[in-house]
């Protein structure tokens, strides 16, 4: 699961889910944009796609300083620890992984996303064609901020660092695949304290070639390689703990200063060669991050256009989002659209075994009311599928054919008129409380008798992730780490993923038919698998209804009037700083 800023996760439980759409400055109402993701020629790009320089942004111009407002500092900038999407969006300015996503703005305002080679010349070579051995070759002319060349061994060292227990905050995909074990650092604990500089399963051939060998097939490796785990770290520059604040630059910008919790300044890295980079730009002279501006303050500053060169990753203050959403002048200075996140009502299938009750919940649930309580359309669009519209192969369907506001009468019929007593658990926040009260009232119309249990918001995911929990249904969100069904359906709906605690499959859905289907699709090449995931999504919803999809999480944030090149990145779910420029 891709993590949004932790604060944002808390906010979703508390305030509003913010986001949706993806168009650049369309300035219209922004609702109903989700069709734009549906067609994709090719998800994985070629070596040609991977060549620099990146096509100029329309109107792109060099110079100036862009200021980002943010409440908290980036908890991590160390490539081994970066996981939260805003961290990686920023890290994307500073260092480069093996592969990356190339987002092309199409004339109709939509975005075409393609995985391309970043440091590597292409998105990886499936050496044996069985997805067990992946080989990456580095481009020529790659340099660090001090002018020294980027070597394959540095990437191996970067991956090795990710094995260190101290760096456990980052994603674990590649480590687990290399180790062939979920507990990836049981034996190899990184290059520290005498450990090998190259992790087991990785081989470095000269300065340009790095190979990853896995015990089992992992066709998603090109996508996993787009995470910061594969960013190069020269051993000599590894400052360990301090690296988290000031990583060594291989990208278009380098860190000039970083005062924790106060500010960070990025300036141009003169040794970065645009001809080696297919996705990044280097328009502003510098970026400045100012920390300590909360969501209300940030919204007010951007709303008044106090400084036209300002931008933020943060969403709009939920209390004001409606007013800003409906103000055409402000909408022109905003990015809005769906992110990779989807919010669900998980039905605990261990407890609610009657599929008709689950279907009745799907039918009776008033999603419009839920959306309204979260602040209306800016919070996100009403969902009906497990997979987000940003997923490759996404296909819209509605398994029950009821209006978004639900159909309590129909649900009542399905329940046979009997009263069903269920327990709803929710994270204890002001909006969480209101939503709970609303759910109780709305579902009562269909004959449900709902008991409300407040759970400490911070422990919420622990509680619902406990297999033995005593609740019948609860809300949670899921965001894919890369835009494939393989990071959505297997982790959340595969019965084999269920453990005693820390479950993502918090519907505890365990179905043989679905498991077989998952195994089949997992072996397919990425391009073929995409539509199959969508089909499975529809099958699960129609036949088993283990969840009630609620909203496709919406991103909605403002930026200053002098900022150009802003669009909602499908990769991060927020603005992409690497494309921004100042208009004057």
């Amino acid at each position: 699961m891709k993590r949004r800023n932790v604060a944002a996760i808390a906010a979703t439980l508390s305030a509003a889910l913010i986001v949706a759409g993806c168009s650049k400055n369309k300035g219209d109402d922004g609702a109903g944009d989700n069709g734009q993701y549906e067609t994709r020629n090719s998800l994985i790009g070629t070596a040609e796609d991977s060549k620099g320089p990146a096509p100029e942004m329309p109107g792109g111009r060099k110079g100036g300083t862009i200021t980002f407002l943010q409440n908290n500092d980036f908890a991590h900038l160390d490539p081994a620890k970066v996981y939260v999407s805003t961290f990686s969006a920023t890290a994307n300015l500073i260092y480069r992984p093996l592969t990356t996503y190339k987002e092309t703005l199409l004339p109709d305002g939509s975005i075409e996303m393609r995985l391309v080679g970043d440091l590597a010349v292409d998105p990886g070579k499936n050496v044996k064609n069985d997805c067990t051995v992946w080989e990456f070759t580095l481009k020529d002319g790659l340099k660090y901020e001090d002018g020294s060349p980027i070597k394959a061994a540095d990437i191996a060292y970067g991956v090795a660092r990710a094995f260190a227990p101290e760096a456990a905050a980052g994603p674990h995909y590649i480590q687990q695949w290399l180790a062939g074990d979920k507990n990836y650092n049981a034996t190899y604990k990184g290059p520290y304290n005498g450990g090998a500089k190259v992790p087991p399963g990785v081989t470095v051939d000269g300065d340009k070639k790095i190979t990853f060998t896995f015990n089992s097939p992992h066709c998603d490796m090109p996508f996993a390689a787009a995470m910061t785990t594969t960013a190069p770290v020269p051993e000599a520059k590894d400052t360990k703990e301090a690296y988290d604040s000031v990583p060594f630059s291989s990208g278009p910008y380098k860190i000039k200063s970083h005062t924790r919790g106060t500010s960070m300044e990025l300036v141009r890295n003169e040794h970065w060669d645009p001809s080696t980079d297919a996705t990044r730009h280097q328009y502003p002279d510098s970026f400045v991050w100012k920390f300590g501006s909360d969501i209300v303050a940030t919204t007010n500053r951007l709303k008044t256009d106090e400084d036209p060169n300002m931008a933020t990753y943060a969403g709009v203050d939920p209390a004001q989002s409606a007013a800003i959403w409906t103000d055409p002048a402000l909408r022109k200075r905003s990015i809005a659209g769906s992110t990779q996140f989807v919010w669900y009502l998980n039905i605990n299938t261990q407890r609610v075994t009657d599929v008709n009750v689950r279907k009745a919940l799907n039918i009776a649930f008033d999603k419009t009311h839920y959306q309204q309580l979260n602040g209306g359309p800016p919070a996100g669009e009403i969902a009906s599928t497990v997979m987000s519209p940003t997923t490759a192969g996404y296909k819209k369907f509605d398994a029950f054919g009821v209006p978004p506001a639900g159909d309590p009468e129909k649900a009542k019929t399905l329940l046979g008129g009997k009263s069903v007593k269920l327990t709803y658990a929710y994270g204890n926040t002001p909006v969480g409380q209101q939503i709970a009260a609303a759910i109780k009232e709305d579902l009562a119309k269909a004959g449900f008798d709902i008991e409300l249990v407040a759970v400490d918001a911070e422990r919420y995911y622990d509680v619902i992730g406990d297999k033995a929990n005593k609740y019948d249904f609860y809300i949670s969100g899921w965001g894919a780490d890369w835009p494939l069904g393989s990071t959505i359906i297997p982790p959340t709906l595969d019965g084999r993923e269920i453990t005693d605690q820390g479950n993502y499959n918090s519907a505890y859905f365990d179905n043989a038919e679905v498991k077989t289907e998952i195994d089949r699709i997992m072996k397919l090449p990425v391009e073929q698998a995409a539509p199959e995931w969508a089909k499975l999504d529809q099958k699960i919803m129609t036949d088993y209804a283990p969840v009630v999809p609620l909203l496709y999480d919406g991103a909605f944030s403002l930026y200053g009037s002098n900022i150009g090149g802003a669009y909602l990145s499908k990769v991060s779910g927020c603005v992409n700083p690497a494309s921004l420029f100042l208009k004057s």
Partner: protein
Amino acid sequence: MSGTMEPMVTETAGPGVAVMAEIPEAEARKFVGLSPGKLAWRRLKRDKVAFWSFVTVVVMFVVAYGAPLISLLYGKDYTTMNSDLLDAYGRPLGYLNGVSGEHWLGIQIGTGRDVFMQMIYGMRTSMTISFVSAVGAIFFGVVVGIIAGYFGGWIDAIISWFIDFMLSFPFLIFAMAAVPIFANVVVGEAKEVPGWINASFLIMVFLIFGWTGTARLVRGQVIGLREREFVEAARASGAGPMHIIFRQLLPNVWAPILVSFSMAVPAFIAAEAALSFLGIGVLEPTPDLGRLVGQAVATMQLDGMWMYLLVTGGAVFLLVLAFNLFGDALRDALDPKSSR
């Protein structure tokens, strides 16, 4: 509010018996020959502010505890979510925050519930919590104060240090940290937490921090009384500690205790509202004033929502003001010297 929550029992120049002081006190004392109780009642009756604050307090009681009846007459309840009266973004339709003949004070943003009903039910919550806390805190304070004052010595030393210790606790910070912990420890899982349990967490926090002021006050009074003739006399005639405490000491400290109580109630109302404002306090669906203000502050920038802020914040203000004024008047009446 400040770090501690000790109800204010100092000063205040209320109206009332002000002019007396000009005459040398010895002379003033001579010609007022009424009993203290009668005198207090006379002063209280004559004090217009006291009268009106008392009326306000009574009205608030009636409104808060008669809320179900008012709900019946008004034709609305505090739970119904009028989502049809909200736009797609959850904002109330119509004027201000949805003020109409149907909903006199408008409806809540987001949920669409009637603000007037939420408010008077919220008042009931606030007042219940404050009263129970005040009764408990004063009782606890009196007991500790009497023990410390009466027995003196090392018992007094320990209690006095403990009071200092409690007063050094940053109340607000501690309450923020402790309330969720109480909730976790006391309530088992998979059970809907009834409103009263929730409220009792707050009451518990108020009890823990609220007794110190009274204890200090009573301790001081008791130390003063302990050596007085009538107590000495009772002791000399062989009366036990219980007799002395209940028959000799308590009757003589009831006035400051009453004043303490009258000042503790508004202090707790304000503290409860502050905690709820910060999101620590009673939960939905139990209505609460501080939480309403919190929502109003968060949304005050939206068109017409100032009304929501004014109504909810004003309610807290009036509630505290009325209780404060009444407490002041009571204190002035019971202890004219305090209002020099």
